[in-house]
């Protein structure tokens, strides 16, 4: 293959072989570390439709970047032009050389430096269209590159308040990536200028350059520069954020084949870490920013994880609200990665040998309030009232003393201790013979659904109350109240329950729209998942969320999580009630009729006037 050789191709060729070798080894190690049961899933999925749908997703996400388009069209275009444009350039470049040389085994660099080896634009049967296309693709990429440079200095145009801080290898890779395409343009233009060839971009620029530059002498250095930029980019890629390009594709396949993150730092978790492109879209959506925390945002946490620099303060500082996962274009399991690191950092030392032996009570339905509901007795009172009205036979399992559901331990990375509590509660629940478990706490709900394997139906009380309303066992009292509903993180993003509480509220009162709803709802700040934030920082988050909720001047803030309720009550300007309290009509205790308010205001005015006189 010495036919197409020149020393300047060496940086590119060396870089390319390096990256192929590196990726081959890295991916092989990752697949080995994935573990046996997960590898079986791969074997099962590889020859199924799942692979085809993975190919589709790779096309949509790794090349077109559909999810980033949804966040911001400009940002999406920037990513698409670089990824898809480069892909087209490589693909068509290869097709072109194949059509021309009719040698299937022509070397890779022949296609990349085609213009150097064939400077006179050789003719083959669709060569006109081909060169037109190649120039268009390059222009397409350059337009995205311009946006990328603008974005570094003016992030707000792209709908982002903050972009990520870069590390050394990121800078190196970024610089070489930015230089690749301008160098290609220069090399092709100089060559076109020297040989009077080229098309609308390279040809025009070439003749312009030829007018005042010694293009014959500049041509060769430009090709060297182009090759060097490519080589540098390939060599720095594995150590920079651009490792996400190859890894994301692997990740998409693995995910489609049904792998999940699990509870250990497996090869799959590693693939997720490497797939983070540090695009920084999560930064604006992470409420840690509101709390003044700039080190623990998802993107920096994953970066620290990749560089093995995770410390307890970083791992523990996450609300586990899941807003980052909603917006992440790569769909990385960020919450779970954080929990895995928590496990490693704090050894599980809990000792629950003191748990008592309790006797289950026979019932059809069990109500489990959970620890947090103990702090908001209004919810239990409302539930009791509603249950009495409905005539259902319900056992209030944890009315007196109760054992925790196990979720706080899981959130703190103590999986083994959690299992002991789970086992205790499971025996009580299955022993009662109930067919339905209702909980008013979304935190408990998550663990009941995911870890308990009860074999009976588990409902959140909003779903249960809606069911009772639909079957007309209870009739919520109508109320002329404007209610703003807050989606608890664990209920909404955690368990995808958005509609039931809204329908329940709508059955008796008026629901008003709020700024952050459903998938993008804010966290109350009281999160059990965060062990690091201090009270002041939590209050900053609380204030932000309350502001968003009270923007439409509601009479009441409703929520369906006792933790959210308790947190809001600290500083909410309007009463905060659980949906059970609204359905049961206990809201009347908190809201004074308008006339009474008026009376009060009059009295105040009177008193003030008297003082003035």
């Amino acid at each position: 293959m010495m036919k197409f050789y020149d020393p300047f191709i060496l940086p590119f060729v060396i870089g390319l072989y390096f990256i192929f070798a590196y990726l081959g080894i890295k991916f092989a190690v990752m697949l080995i570390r994935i573990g046996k049961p997960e590898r079986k899933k791969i074997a099962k999925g590889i020859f199924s439709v799942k692979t085809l749908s993975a190919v589709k997703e790779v096309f949509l996400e790794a090349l077109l970047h559909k999810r980033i388009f949804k966040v911001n069209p400009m940002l999406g275009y920037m990513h698409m032009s670089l990824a898809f444009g480069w892909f087209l350039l490589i693909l068509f470049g290869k097709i072109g050389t194949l059509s021309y040389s009719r040698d299937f085994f022509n070397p890779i660099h022949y296609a990349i430096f085609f213009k150097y080896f064939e400077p006179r634009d050789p003719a083959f049967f669709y060569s006109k269209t081909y060169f037109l296309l190649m120039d268009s693709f390059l222009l397409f990429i350059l337009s995205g590159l311009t946006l990328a440079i603008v974005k570094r200095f003016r992030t707000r145009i792209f709908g982002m308040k903050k972009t990520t801080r870069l590390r050394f290898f990121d800078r190196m890779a970024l610089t070489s990536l930015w230089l690749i395409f301008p160098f290609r343009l220069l090399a092709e233009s100089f060559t076109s200028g020297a040989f009077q060839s080229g098309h609308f971009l390279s040809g025009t620029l070439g003749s312009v350059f030829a007018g005042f530059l010694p293009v014959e002498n500049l041509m060769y250095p430009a090709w060297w520069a182009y090759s060097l930029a490519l080589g540098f980019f390939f060599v720095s890629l594995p150590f920079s954020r651009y490792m996400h390009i190859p890894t994301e594709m692997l990740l998409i396949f693995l995910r489609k084949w049904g792998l999940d993150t699990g509870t250990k730092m497996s090869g799959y978790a590693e693939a997720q870490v490497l797939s983070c492109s540090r695009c920084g879209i999560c930064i604006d959506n992470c409420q840690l920013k509101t709390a003044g925390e700039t080190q623990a945002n998802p993107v920096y946490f994953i970066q620290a994880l990749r560089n093995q620099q995770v410390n307890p303060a970083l791992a523990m500082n996450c609300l586990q609200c899941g807003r980052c996962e909603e917006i992440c274009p790569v769909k990385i399991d960020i919450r779970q990665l954080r929990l895995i690191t928590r496990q490693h950092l704090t050894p599980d030392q809990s000792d629950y040998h003191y748990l008592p032996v309790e006797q289950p009570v026979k019932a059809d339905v069990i109500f489990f309030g959970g620890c947090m509901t103990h702090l908001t007795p209004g919810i239990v009172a409302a539930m009791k009232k509603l249950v009495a009205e409905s005539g259902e036979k319900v056992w209030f399992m944890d009315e007196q003393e109760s054992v925790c559901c196990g979720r706080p331990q899981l959130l703190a990375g103590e999986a083994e201790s959690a299992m002991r509590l789970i086992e205790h509660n499971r025996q009580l629940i299955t022993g009662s013979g109930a067919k339905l478990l209702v909980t008013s706490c979304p935190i408990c709900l998550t663990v009941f659904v995911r870890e308990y394997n009860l074999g009976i139906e588990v409902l959140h009380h909003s779903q249960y109350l809606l069911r009772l309303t639909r079957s007309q066992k209870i009739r919520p009292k109508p109320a002329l109240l404007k209610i703003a509903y807050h989606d608890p993180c664990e209920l909404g993003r955690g368990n995808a329950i958005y509609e039931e509480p809204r329908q329940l509220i709508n059955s008796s009162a008026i629901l008003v729209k709020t700024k952050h709803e459903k998938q993008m709802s804010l966290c109350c700040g009281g999160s059990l998942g965060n062990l690091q934030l201090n009270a002041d920082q939590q209050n900053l988050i609380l204030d932000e969320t309350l502001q968003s909720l009270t923007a439409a001047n509601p009479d009441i803030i409703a929520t369906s999580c006792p933790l959210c309720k308790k947190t809001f009550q600290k500083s909410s300007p309007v009463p905060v009630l659980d949906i059970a309290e609204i359905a049961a009509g206990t809201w009347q205790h908190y809201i004074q009729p308008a006339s009474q308010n008026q009376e009060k205001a009059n009295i105040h005015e009177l008193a003030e006037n008297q003082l003035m006189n």
Partner: protein
Amino acid sequence: MATFGFSILKDRQIDYDNNDHRLFRFIEEQEPSIRLCIGCGGCTAGCTAAGFTGFNYRKLNYLLMRGETEHLQKGIQQCMLCGKCKLVCPRGVNTRNMIFALKRAFKTPLWEELQKKINV
């Protein structure tokens, strides 16, 4: 210590001359809010684990602050981490982080040193 001619029950005695505050300082660095405790006991009144056992967060916090490390490890192990204590705390003490900082401290050489001192 000066003798005044009467005896004090050993259990009722806090000997600041002998108590070792290194552990407290180590934890305080990671969770400064533990100093804010006014000992109201709200944490312990609502505690889930305290319903079944003698677990007492307020007591443990005080023992730590006084440098009495003897009963800390056994005590902390009983916590169910539910976080009610943090919600009711009027001073905003980050109780759960204190517990985790302690759990990590139990794996440090400092703790081993303190253990040896207690056993002597």
